[in-house]
């Protein structure tokens, strides 16, 4: 399959601080890949290098098959969309005017503005000056701006960090739709649920290194077999393994009428992350 991003032996240091140490990965055309990692692990740094906002200290970074520093060309910039935590909006302008500027810069019709506002649930705020919006609303305007031109490659740096669960869910649907229409998505998050909900593959980033990179499903099975928790009528909890002995225990409690609830402890990406790095997300 065709690689849209190819990164080999990428190193980035700020002075004597190593932010990325020898990072290798590829992003395939059409996939959604997520970089999951705690604060300071190097997620934003990676996105900045991939979008030519920062120069790599060493290593080879290619986007659309070309060295990343060649990205800054109108024809290529039209193919990418970027949402970072420092993407600024024009405070005094309305949501509509902010997006209209980018519609012109990307050469897309103004009617597309309505579509993207629908996707981020902001149609009611079309005529509101940006400075009157909440933090999460601003984040959604920035997201709308990043997808206005249906980019072939979309970079999202913690796209839903300031959003409530309902809006997040709606935006996830929109992103999946965009992905189905052909947009390759590179996103960073420290929310394992977001990574699971959206990503075909997830990279665990810790201290500037990729610890694992695989499908969420494969990652989950790596963290060992799930256990089963039983809550009994006397409010005690018993944990059993999903094997013969566990089955016997469960049927015993059921037969004696002691069982209140059964809960399967599916391993999460978060659990695996802790196992691997000794650190919480």
């Amino acid at each position: 399959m065709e690689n849209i991003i190819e990164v080999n032996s990428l190193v980035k240091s700020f002075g004597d601080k190593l932010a990325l140490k020898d990072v290798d990965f590829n992003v395939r055309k059409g996939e959604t890949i997520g970089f999951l990692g705690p604060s300071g692990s190097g997620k934003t740094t990676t996105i900045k290098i991939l979008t030519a906002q920062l120069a790599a200290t060493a290593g080879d970074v290619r986007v659309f098959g070309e060295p990343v520093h060649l990205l800054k060309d109108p024809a290529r910039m039209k193919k990418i969309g970027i949402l970072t935590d420092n993407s600024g909006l024009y405070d005094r302008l309305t949501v509509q005017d902010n997006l209209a500027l980018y519609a012109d810069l990307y050469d897309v019709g103004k009617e597309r503005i309505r579509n993207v506002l629908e996707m981020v649930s902001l149609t009611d705020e079309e005529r509101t000056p940006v400075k009157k919006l909440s933090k999460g609303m601003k984040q959604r305007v920035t997201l709308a701006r990043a997808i206005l031109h249906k980019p072939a490659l979309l970079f999202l740096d913690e796209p839903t960090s300031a959003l409530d669960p309902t809006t997040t869910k709606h935006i996830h649907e929109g992103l999946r739709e965009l992905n189905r229409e052909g947009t390759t998505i590179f996103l960073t998050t420290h929310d394992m649920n977001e990574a699971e909900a959206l990503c075909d593959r997830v990279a665990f980033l810790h201290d500037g290194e990729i610890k694992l990179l695989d499908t969420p499903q494969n990652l989950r099975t790596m963290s060992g077999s799930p256990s089963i928790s039983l809550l009994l009528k006397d409010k005690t909890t018993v944990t059993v393994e999903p094997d013969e002995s566990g089955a016997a225990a469960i049927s015993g409690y059921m037969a004696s009428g002691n069982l209140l609830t059964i809960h399967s402890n599916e391993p999460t990406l978060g659990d695996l992350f802790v196992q691997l790095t000794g650190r919480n997300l």
Partner: protein
Amino acid sequence: MMTTFSIKRVNAIFVKDWKDLQRNSYVLFTLALPLFFAAWLGRIGADSAEMIAFPIVFALVIAGAFVQAAMVAEEKEKNTLRGLLLSPASVTEVFVGKSLLSGVMTLVVVAGCIWLAEFTVPSLPMFALSIVIALIFFLAIGTLLGLLSRTVMETSIIGMPVMLIFGMSSMFKSMITNEAILTVMDYLPNELLMNIWVGLENGAAVGESFLILTVWAVVSVAATVIVYRKRRMD
């Protein structure tokens, strides 16, 4: 570096800045200052050539340099410049679009000052040419100030010396006795402008002043480009 230049994108920046300007009270107030000043001079009926030319120079400094500096610095302060540069727009397109708006606004303010101060324009084509060359100089200085400042607030601090040297130096001339300094002052853009306007009225030669003014414009544009390139990888 720059492979294409799109009028459509320049226009998009211009339109955005125009919409923004209408809601930007700081910039609107700044643009109004030279007009108040010119109106006041018109009322007291000042008639020395220098007094009357002063509001026009003031308009060029305030509207050309200060407003441009504030607009550039705000794009940096609010992180919007980054967004523009990550779009298909090139640096040149962004700064040309912005300078066009500041330029048009400056011309409007200069025209307003001429009218309010009841300044009689000596020879319109030559006068207009002097204004355009000076405008390029002041816009470049404004852009440079904007690039050197991190915030809009900083532009007014860094801008003060610029204001004093390029805007008000004529006012201190009578206080200065040092010949060397006086000679240097004759080569400042604002002094050159006054020379040109007085010369146009009296029929004196203005070619040399025009030439030096053009050198200022070219040098300031070059300096701005160099500073931008240096600051690029922040």
